[in-house]
């Protein structure tokens, strides 16, 4: 597969994620769209890893694994973020009984 296909696929997912963030008001869904963006990056990284492996793999067999390890760490971070994020959303929901991001706008101007 040419790398461009993966690039454009990832970009598509990434942009869909962004559109989701922009158009939805449910904070959980916005968060999910952010996860979509992260996954786009993951996919891209893996694709690049395999691309580099194709070129460099013969001389540096472990080189391309870096990106895959990176993806692993992204997943780690995502998990941590999710736990914190959901905790915050839940806290908010307990206080306001809403998950609408626009429900609270005491802070402005």
């Amino acid at each position: 597969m040419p790398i461009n296909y993966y690039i454009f696929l990832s970009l598509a997912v990434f942009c869909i994620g962004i559109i989701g963030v922009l158009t939805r008001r449910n904070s959980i869904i916005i968060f999910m769209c952010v996860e979509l963006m992260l996954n786009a990056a993951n996919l891209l990284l893996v694709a690049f890893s395999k691309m580099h492996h194709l070129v460099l793999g013969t001389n540096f067999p472990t080189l391309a694994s870096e990106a895959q390890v990176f993806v692993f760490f992204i997943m780690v971070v995502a998990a941590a973020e999710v736990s914190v994020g959901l905790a915050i959303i839940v806290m908010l929901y307990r206080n306001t009984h809403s998950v609408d991001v626009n429900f609270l706008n005491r802070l402005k101007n």
Partner: protein
Amino acid sequence: MNNLQIVWLIPFLPLIGFLINGLGRKSLSKTLSGIIGSGVILGSFILSVWVFLQVKNGNTYVAHYYDFINLPSLKIGFDFQIDQLSSLFLLIITGVGFLIHVYSTSYMHEEESKDFAKYFSYLNLFIFSMLLLVMGGNYIIMFIGWEGVGLCSYLLIGFWFKNNDYNNAAKKAFIMNRIGDLGFLLAVFWLIAKVGTADYHVVFENVHKLSVTDITGITMLLFVGATGKSAQIPLYTWLPDAMAGPTPVSALIHAATMVTAGIYMIARSNLLFTMAPATQTVVAIVGLATAILAATIALKQNDIKKVLAYSTVSQLGYMFLGLGVGAYTGAVFHVMTHAFFKALLFLGAGSVIHAMSGEQDIRNMGGLKKYMSVTHVTFLLGCLAIAGMPPFSGFFSKDEILAAAFANNPVLWGVGVLGALMTAFYMFRLYAMTFLGKFRGTHDQEHHLHESPAAITIPLIILAILAVVGGWVGIPEVFIHGGHRLEAFLDPIFAGSKAITTQHEMSHTTEYALMAVSVGGALVALLYAWNKFSKYEKSTTEDSSIGKILANKWYVDELYETIIVKPMQSLAGFLNNTVERKGIDGFVNGIGKAVNYGSRQIRFLQSGQVGTYILLMVVGILIMFIIQFLSK
């Protein structure tokens, strides 16, 4: 060391007098301040006489005291130049000045003692400044005196400072003088730029190196200075107003000395003016125009001092005419005689006013002859002198100027004679209305009428004698061979000018004829006025239109008010209210307001909604990418 080095004492004595009277004005008694005030002038006078004797034989001396300014590109010494011209002026200033001081001790006696002392301190300061003016060895020192006399004139005109009209007059005098001063200063700058110095002798030595433009420019500017100080068109209007000051002040400053500073300055710079024929023409024309204009105004004035003031302006005009036609000696001569008879007339007027308890309107006088004989006689002599009746002093000096004018251009002479006729007319109108006929004042005033005390009459008598005989030092050649002693005396000063001008030799017949015409005309005018106004009655009839214009001084004050003062005031107001407040400050504040406004608007970006924030961020990201990739 030349013993003339001590001439510094001449101005120093009045300065001492000023300081003593000024600082001790609360403790000094009137007598003491009078004695100090007059005494220092007497001292200066005696020194002046001595100086006169020293330079009589053609000596000149420059006394250098210290370096006033000493820069690589400009050296100005604190120098006094003692020569024939300055010594002559010294005599006039200190001599007439002394008489007027003596006169003042009596005239000002009703003032409180501290005001009395203040008055004398001002007078002394004036003498000091005037002496600096004439003694200065360069234009800078002259300018110091030049502005100094302006200041003293300001102080003395506004001596009674509670009266706002007097203050306005004082202010007007100072400001108009300053306009002239600006011209003077610019001339000095020009000189410094071209010659690199302001010393008289260096300037005159280097005068040939200057271009015609330079000389014309410099002399024109100097003449502007002279018009301010010597009350010529267009800056003459302050002088009549200056009559607000005490009468002896008018006599000293506004008749005898300060106003002649312009003539002194031009006479001093005669070489420059001689080399600038264009300027000379202007000087002559302006002088003559002033002489006529002031004379016409004087015809219809009713204030005794105003008449004298306009006559002063008119006589100064004659002097400038003399300067303009190259008759420097004549001009200086006229300065001298004018100092005598005009001081006399002013002091006489003061005596009258004193007797009339402050009344100055001649329509309310009349018949004073029988109450104040000394004043009357001396005043009459003064009038004859100014009217140019032979053999009184005015005849000789005025005749010399007119003769020179004729030699230059007969038209100048013709107009000059016309002015002389008017002079005779208004002076005798004044004389007749004051001293002849019957008294027109209130009963109260009549009761008070009395001859003035000796301190007033003695100066009058001395001045009257001078007014009669003063002209004899300049009896022209036509009468006595070698008669013009003054011309011989002043020859070292004007020799340079004479050397480069062509002398118009007139036949004696012509001279006699000219004299006859002017004297005859003046006599007719004199007798007509005498006859007409000795029977003057108060009447309420309106003046004719031309009379009204004359009585209102050709509306020149109003004209100035309209074309200069008012526009300047409204321009200032416009600048203050519109340009400054709304324009410049408005712009500066506008920046502040714009920042505030921008702040108020830009904060709405911060809408508080995450959606909007992220949208804006995405737009930002878009912009970043567009800049990075599509802007090339």
